[in-house]
């Protein structure tokens, strides 16, 4: 009895953690109690309970249809909602400019997006931080050179690096591979892997993360740091 309840709840949790809509079933009161707690914990993962722009678009469109309003304002309003929620940087879509060229020639990744600082310390040297095979596509790694905490990422086969420290108050950012975000554990701020602010709940947007110049040499990812 307990074992089958545990199995059903485990399937429910699996669905939540894989981002699937859970299957319906006839649950006992003990199971629904456990499932309610699971839903709360799933929502507690940083940024998990933030709607993406596509979801807001769909909700707005259906409201428009069902409330018998003209859908002509969709784009304007959903864009405004999304920007106010997630920060203007998210829509800038400047990520990745120039990355292809830089990587194919094996040099430093860049340039950084407009307004984004590039960390170039005095006396910087190329330092290996990870082997390329440690960073398959769609993954991000926290690395430290002792002086610099960074996150290196592989997005679409292109490797890049940004500071791994939140620009708000210096908390260490946590890479979220599912959503390709860097999440701040302190004040619910999130950045894209390339360092642009995606989301914040502060009165003003924090600066984007500084880019760190990176390159691949002899199977090693190297950063230009001290």
């Amino acid at each position, binding site marked *: 009895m*307990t*074992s089958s*309840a*545990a*199995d059903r*709840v*485990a399937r429910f*949790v*699996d669905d*939540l*953690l894989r*981002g*699937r*809509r*859970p299957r*319906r079933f*006839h*649950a006992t*009161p003990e*199971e*629904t*109690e*456990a*499932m*309610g*707690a*699971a*839903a*709360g*914990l*799933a*929502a*507690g*993962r940083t940024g*998990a*309970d*933030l*709607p993406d722009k596509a*979801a*807001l678009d*769909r*909700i*707005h469109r*259906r*409201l428009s249809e069902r*409330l018998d*309003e003209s859908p002509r304002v969709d784009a304007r*309003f959903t864009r*405004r*909602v999304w920007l*106010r*929620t997630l920060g203007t940087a998210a829509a800038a879509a400047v990520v990745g400019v120039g990355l292809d060229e830089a990587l194919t020639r094996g040099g430093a990744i860049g340039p950084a997006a407009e307004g984004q600082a590039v960390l170039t310390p005095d006396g910087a040297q190329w330092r290996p931080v990870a082997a390329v095979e440690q960073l398959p596509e769609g993954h991000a790694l926290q690395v430290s050179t002792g002086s610099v905490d960074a996150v290196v990422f592989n997005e679409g086969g292109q490797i890049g690096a940004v500071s791994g420290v939140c620009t708000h*108050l210096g908390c260490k950012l946590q890479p979220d591979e*599912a959503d390709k975000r860097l999440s701040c554990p302190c*004040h*619910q701020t999130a950045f894209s892997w390339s360092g642009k602010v995606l*989301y914040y*709940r*502060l*009165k003003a947007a924090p600066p984007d993360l500084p880019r760190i110049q990176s390159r691949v040499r002899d199977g090693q990812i190297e950063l230009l740091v001290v």
Partner: protein
Amino acid sequence: MGVINLRGADDPEPEPVNDPASSIYTDWESVYQDNVVGIYQLVFRRVGNAADAEDLAEDVLIRTLKTLRLPAPVHNVRSYLVKTAKTVLADHWRSHYAAQNVELELEQLPPSGLGNAASTVASERAQRLLGLLPDQFRQVLELRFLRGYSVREVAHEMGVTESNARVLQFRALRKAAQFEREVLA
């Protein structure tokens, strides 16, 4: 050498801004714009997945906007949104999982609309809850929910069978629910 003050500038903790308590909503777009994210998050915390949260948030907004006559005071609309969310969520748990006597305590919507809509409620609550649990229960839930381990990986990490890992997870979740009711309520 003098004493170095390691404390930096004052921590600009998030503060509510532009509290619209005394304002009026005149059209559904404004209601949507100010509240859709808050409603989505409120619902997400009770269903734990994006697909259901999207459907239910839409349902809450539709039911509210079809019932309330605008213009209406902002605080009335927001109270009604929360009340409606309670009903919609109870219906969801009843229809999907045959849950009886669903008791939901819902927090109020964040006061300042979308600019500050997202909150740390869910993650802070989850952290506090995990901190209350006995070690083994906390470990299984941290591995699953915070580190994304599969049941198999949890079993391997904790040196138990997969079947035992599932039972452990079930008991840990029930204990978490109990603490949520008795301690965090």
